Structure formats: C-alpha cells, structure tokens
C-alpha cells in the first residue's frame, strides 16, 4: 500500500475490487465492504467510483463516499438507493460477497479531514457517510476531541450509522421522532466554531440551510467546505433560505 497522501496517478487506475461483505439497510441503502488490490489509502471524506460493465461493453458508474478509516483493511462504501437507480439498484439487489467490481479512487482532495486541526462535521441523511470515515479516523489516531459532529434526518431509520454516531457523542437531530428537533439556526449557532473547519454534507437543500445558519452564527465563509449530492430540482429562493 502507498502512504496516505494520495498518489494522483495511482488513484486514477481502475482496479478489480472483491466484494467481501454486503449489508442491506432495508430498501434504503446497501453497505459494501471491498478488498481493493494495491490500493492508495484514502483521506477521510474522499470517494470512490464504482463502474459496472455489461458483456457488450456498456458501462455505468457512480461515486460513493468512503465510510471506512484509512487504516481499515477494507474499503467500506455507503450506497444510498436512488429511486429507479441503475447502479445503486444493481449494487443493492444483485451484488454478493465474492463478486468483483471495478473501482477507482480515492478521489477528491477538498472535502477531507486528516485528523489534525479542529473540525465540525454536519451531515444530513446519507450525508453522514464521509463524516463517519472522519470519526473512525479520529478514533484511530487518538484525537476524537478534534471532531465535533451534528447529524440530522427525519427518523432514526433515515440516519445511517446512527448508533455509532450516538456512541461518539454526535448531536443527533431527528425531526420526526417524538421529542426530536431540527438543526435550525439556534442549534447550528450553538455548535458553530470559527476556529474549526466546517464540513457540511447532504442534499442541496440541507447544505444550503446549514451554510446559512453557520454564516449567520459567524462561521467564516472560507472555513466552510461543502459536499452536495443527490438529485434535486430547482429550489426556490424561499425554500432555500429557510
């Protein structure tokens, strides 16, 4: 294995990974654990591309966040099932341990946290996946106090890795559970930390709201890093500003 730090050319190479473990989260998601030969160690927050290849050469590929810590022997990917998703549906319904999947990575050097300075991770729904990689890495390097986490979903079932996040002391906001709450301006204001790098991951609507709350709480814009994902239509300005 190569050192953490991401050799660009090596990371770009397609590799045949072996599926070691497949865990289904109902019809919401599937978690794949892959043995990637000769892999380049990722930085927490980076993603992998998975490419499916049919016999006639047709391919379809998508990016998925790495959930595992770099020190993990395997690469754990969280695959949220997208309605009518060609790739996520296949990964959830067909793939079994022992299968091979083409992957390349790790990719992206912006939405990352290496475990050095203080960081505040805010994730919505499946947007917690890269933050869990950061959490595992923080534990691994013995600096869990550097990383604060706030995560949000509608229900407990909509929040991947909920138990692991709760055990780590994350602020867990479940808006539709009894006694639940939202990451509103007050909640985000209470955790904003101008001295930390804020890492915000989730849907376009979620991240836009979190950015607004952080900026309103005095978090400098240049400390905010954002990873948006998922299909989204036009968001009207009223909705986006809430």
């Amino acid at each position: 294995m190569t050192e953490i730090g991401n050799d660009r050319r090596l990371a770009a190479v397609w590799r045949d990974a072996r599926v070691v473990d497949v865990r289904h989260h109902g019809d919401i998601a599937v978690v794949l654990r892959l043995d990637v030969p000769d892999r380049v160690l990722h930085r927490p927050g980076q993603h992998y591309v998975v490419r499916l290849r049919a016999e006639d050469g047709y391919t379809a590929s998508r990016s998925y966040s790495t959930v595992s810590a770099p020190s993990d022997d395997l690469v754990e990917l969280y695959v949220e099932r997208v309605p009518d998703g060609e790739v996520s549906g296949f990964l959830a319904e067909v793939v079994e341990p022992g299968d091979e999947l083409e992957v390349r990575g790790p990719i992206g050097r912006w939405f990352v946290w290496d475990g050095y300075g203080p960081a505040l991770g805010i994730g919505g729904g499946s947007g917690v996946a890269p933050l869990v990689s950061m959490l595992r890495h923080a534990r691994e390097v013995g600096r869990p106090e550097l990383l604060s986490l706030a995560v949000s979903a509608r229900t407990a079932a909509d929040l991947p890795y909920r138990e692991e996040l709760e055990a780590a002391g994350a602020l867990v906001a479940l808006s539709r559970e009894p006694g639940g709450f939202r990451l509103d301006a007050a909640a985000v204001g209470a955790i904003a930390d101008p001295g930390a790098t804020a890492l915000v991951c989730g849907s376009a609507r979620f991240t836009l709201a979190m950015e607004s709350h952080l900026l309103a709480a005095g978090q400098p814009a240049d400390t905010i890093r954002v990873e948006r994902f998922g299909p989204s239509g036009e968001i009207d300005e009223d909705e986006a500003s809430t």
Partner: protein
Amino acid sequence: MAITRGFTGRRRQAERDPRLPPGQYDVGRSWPVLTAEATPRVDAERWSLTIDGLVAHPTSWSLAELKALAGAADDTYRGDIHCVTTWSKLDTSFTGISLDTLLGIAQPLPEATHVVEESTTRYTTNLPLEDVTGGKAWVVWEHEGKPLSREHGGPVRVVVPHLYFWKSAKWISKIHLLDHDQPGFWELNGYHDHGDPWLEQRFDGD
C-alpha cells in the same frame, strides 16, 4: 476489465441518446447542485465582471452594462451540459453574452494562452483561451428564460458547455488571461486539467 456478474445495463448501448458522452446519464428535467463552498448571496446591483491580465484593455462591466451590450440580440446557448459526476442535462438553454464579444473589447495580447475564471467565492477554474473563444463560452444570467438562481451561480455565471461543468464558474467575478496554464480549484484537487466529456477526462490521470 472484468465484466460485472449479472449486469446487463438498463439502457442499452444502441438505445443510448447520441448526445450523451460516454459514462453519462440523462438527468431529465432536474438540475443537480454541486458546489464546494458556501453558496454566496451576490447582489446583482453591485456585481461586476472584470476581464484583466494579458489584455490590451482591462475592462469591468456591471450587469446592466452587459445586458445593454448584449442588446436585443441576446446570445443564447441551447444544447447540452455535462457534469463530471455523470449526469448530463440535455437541450437546455442559457441567455447572456458570448465571451467572444467581451474578449473583443478587452483584446487579448498575442502572448495570452490561458484563462482563469474566478468566482466571488474565490473558486477558480482554468481553460486554454481557445476553449472560450470561437462561440464556445458564454457569460449568462438566465436559464430557460428565468433569472439564474443563486445555487446555480446567479446572478451571473460562465457556461462552457463543451467541457465538464466545473469549468463553468458560478458567481463569476473575473476572467484573468495568462501566458501559461494555472490549475484552478478542482484541477488542484484531483480533477482533470482539461475536462473534455467526450474523452472522459474526469480525473487527474485520465
């Protein structure tokens, strides 16, 4: 490369829309938002675009000035856009002004070979000058007839539709001409320097 066991693909190669570059899918009517930084609120009244660097006449325009320059013959791009994250949006439109018009005023010096687009957020992306001249690039303020929304780069963004869309800076504030290539934000963060979707130039090393 290995064939994926059991994968036939939902969309057969023969039925693929020829407008889709390899590895892309049609996102339909939606338009995903991908941004690395906090979405700024840019005041259209106070906003301006500057073209500077290796030009004979460094020039700044307000939005009203750009619209006046575009005049009745608004330059509209109608066609497809392609995001490196594998979605493409087909047959969409942007209205603004061709970068050719603006560069015609600023007058690139003979030694200028590259441009860096810079956003109000300090996001940057680099392109060869030849990729933004000859009817290939626009500075736009409308999408499908409506003002460009904030999350899609409003009030004004760049559109360079023949390259992956990270080459089309949102919240554009400056276009800087250089005599050398200077990697921008994603180009320094693992993505390809050029970004041609038809060559699948997605990541550094492609």
